[in-house]
C-alpha cells in the first residue's frame, strides 16, 4: 500500500478514502455504469422526442421487427419500440429500487440507533425483531403481500388499485423487509460511538437522548448506512424484478425490466432477444451496485487490508 510514502504529506481522511475507493477498479466501473444508466433512463423523454417516436404507440403491423434506423433494437410483440421501452422500464425499476432502499435505510437507521444507544430491553427487543425478519421466508411472504387486496381493508378502490398506488405499495413491501442489514450495521456502529467522549460530554451537559441520537450519533454512523444501503440495492432491484416478472409488482402497460419478461416462456422459442435485453440490464445494474458497495466498504473500513 502506498500509505507509507505519503505519510509525511498532509492527507485528509476523505482523500484517503477517495484513493482507496479509486484503487478498487471494479467499483469505479460499477459507479460509472450506474451513472450512465440513470442518465440514459432519466433522459428517455428527450431521446423519445429526438427520435420522433412514441414509446407507448402500439403498431400491430410492425410486431417483432429487427433493429432498424427507426427502431434501434427493433419492436416488441405489440410493435412498440424496444429501446425506448427499456429506458422507460429502467426509470420505473430504478425509481422503485432507489425509493425502497431509501425508505429501508431510514427504518434501519432508526432501529439501529435506537437499539444501540438505548441498550437493555429495547436493544434485546429490536434485535430479536431484526433476527426474526431475517429468518422469515422472504419471497413467499413478498408474494402474499403483493397480492393482498387493500380494498378489503376499507380503502377506496382507486387508492387500492390505481397505477401509482401499486407502485408505492411495491416500494413499501420491499422496504418493510429490506431494512435489516442497515439496522445491524448501524447498531454496531452506534455501540462504539456512544462510548466516545463527545457523547459522554453531551450527556454530562444534560442533552436529551433524542438530541444525542439525532445530532451526535446519526452523523457518525452515516458511513455504515451508506455502505449497507448500497450493498442492499442489488437485492432490492432483484426483488422488484422478480415480483414484476411474476405479475405482482409493476403492472403493465407501465413497463419495468421485470414485467417486460413476463411472457418469456413463449418468447425464448422465437424472439429470445426480447428476454435478453431487460434481463441483461437487471444483471448489469445489480452487479454494478454490488461492486460499488464492495468498493465503498473497502474505502470506508480501515481494517479491510488490501494487497
Amino acid at each position, binding site marked *: 500500500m502506498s500509505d507509507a510514502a505519503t505519510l509525511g504529506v498532509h492527507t485528509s481522511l476523505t482523500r484517503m478514502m477517495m484513493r482507496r475507493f479509486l484503487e478498487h477498479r471494479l467499483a469505479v466501473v460499477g459507479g460509472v455504469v450506474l451513472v450512465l444508466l440513470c442518465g440514459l433512463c432519466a433522459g428517455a423523454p428527450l431521446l423519445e422526442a429526438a427520435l420522433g417516436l412514441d414509446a407507448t404507440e402500439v403498431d400491430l403491423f410492425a410486431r417483432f421487427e429487427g433493429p432498424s434506423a427507426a427502431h434501434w433494437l427493433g419492436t416488441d410483440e405489440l410493435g412498440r419500440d424496444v429501446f425506448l421501452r427499456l429506458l422507460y422500464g429502467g426509470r420505473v425499476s430504478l425509481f422503485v429500487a432507489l425509493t425502497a432502499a431509501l425508505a429501508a435505510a431510514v427504518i434501519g437507521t432508526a432501529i439501529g440507533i435506537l437499539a444501540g444507544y438505548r441498550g437493555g430491553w429495547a436493544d434485546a427487543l429490536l434485535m430479536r425483531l431484526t433476527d*426474526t425478519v431475517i*429468518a422469515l*421466508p422472504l419471497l413467499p411472504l413478498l408474494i402474499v403481500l403483493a*397480492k393482498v387486496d387493500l380494498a378489503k381493508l376499507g380503502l377506496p378502490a382507486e387508492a387500492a388499485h390505481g397505477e401509482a398506488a401499486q407502485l408505492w405499495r411495491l416500494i413499501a413491501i420491499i422496504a418493510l423487509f429490506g431494512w435489516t442489514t442497515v439496522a445491524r450495521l448501524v447498531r454496531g456502529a452506534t455501540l462504539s460511538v456512544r462510548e466516545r467522549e463527545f457523547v459522554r460530554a453531551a450527556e454530562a451537559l444534560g442533552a436529551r437522548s433524542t438530541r444525542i441520537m439525532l445530532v451526535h450519533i446519526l452523523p457518525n454512523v452515516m458511513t455504515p448506512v451508506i455502505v449497507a444501503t448500497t450493498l442492499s440495492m442489488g437485492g432490492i432491484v432483484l426483488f422488484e424484478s*422478480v415480483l414484476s416478472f411474476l405479475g405482482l409488482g409493476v403492472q403493465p402497460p407501465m413497463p419495468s425490466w421485470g414485467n417486460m419478461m413476463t411472457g418469456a416462456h413463449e418468447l425464448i422459442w422465437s424472439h429470445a432477444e426480447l428476454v435478453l435485453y431487460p434481463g441483461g440490464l437487471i*444483471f448489469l445494474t445489480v*452487479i454494478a451496485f454490488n461492486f460499488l458497495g464492495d468498493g465503498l466498504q473497502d474505502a470506508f473500513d480501515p481494517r479491510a487490508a488490501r494487497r
Partner: protein
Amino acid sequence: MTAYVTHRLLQTLVVLLLMSVAVYGLIWLMPGDPIDLMVSANPDLTAADGARLRALYGLDRPFAERYLAWLQAALGGDLGYSRQYARPVLEIVGPRMANTLILVGLSFVASVALAFPLGLIAARRPYSAADNAVNLFCFAGISIPPFWLALLLIMAFSVGLGWLPAGGVPAEGGLGAEAAHLVLPVATLTLGSVAAYARFIRGETIAALRLDFVRTAQAKGATPWRVLTRHALRNALIPVVTVIGLHFGTVFSGALITETMFAYPGMGKLIYDSIMGNDFNLALAGLLLVTLITLLSNLAADLLYVRLDPRVNYEGART
C-alpha cells in the same frame, strides 16, 4: 445446553404462532372470496344460499374467532380442503415437500462441493489471477436474476442445443428421465449459492490466515497446503458452517422461482399457484410449513455454532 435448546425451541414456536396470525390475516385480505367463487361457479346457488354457506363455514364470525377455530383444527391435524384439488391439504403438501427437498438437497450438496475448492483457490493467493476470476464469478452469481438465469439455461440447453427438457416432470422413462429434468433446476439454484458460499469461505479463510498460529505453523515448516486446510480452514469453518446453515432456509423458500420457471411440482410452485388461484387453505398451510422449515434450519445453524465453537457458552449465546 438443554436449557438453551428449550429456550430457542420455545422462541421458534412463538414466532411460528405470530406468523400464523399474520399469514391468516393476509390470506383473508386476498382478492376474491371462497363463497363468491362458489356462487359464481354454480348458477343454482342464489345470494341467500351464499349467506347460508357463509354461516355454515363460520365465515360471518369475527376474525379472532375464525382464527382460533382454524388453529384448533390445525393443531388437531386438520388443515382443511384444497379448493383447486378438492383433497385434504395435508395429502397434497406431502409429495410436494419431498420434491422440494430433493431439489434443494441436491443443490445444497453441489453448492458445498463446489464452493470449498473455489473459496480455497481464491484464498490461497489473494488478488492473484485465480482469485480475481473466482471473485468475478462470485459477483456474477450473486447478481444474476434467478428467473433470468433459468431462462438463459432453457434457451441454451433446451431451445438451442436440445439436450435437456425445459421443465416439468417426466410421465415415464424412469430414473434417467427424472435426472434429466432435475439438471437445469438444480443448476439454477446452485449457481447463486456457490457464489455466496465461495465468497464467504474465501473471506473467512483469508482472515484466519492472518492469525498468529498460522504464522507459527508456517514457521514450523508445515506445507502451504497443510497450513491452508488444517490450520486456516478449520478455524474459518465455524462461521462458514453457520452461514451455510442460515442460507438453507433462504434457498428453500427461494426455490419458488426456480420451481415456477421449470414447472417443477415442489412447495414453492404449490404456494405460488395456490396464492394465484385463491386456494386459501392450501396457501396458508404451505406458507406456514415453509416458515417452519426456515425457522428450524436457522435454529439448527445457531445450535451448530454453539456446538462448534468452545469459546461460546450457552448463557452468553442466549442474549
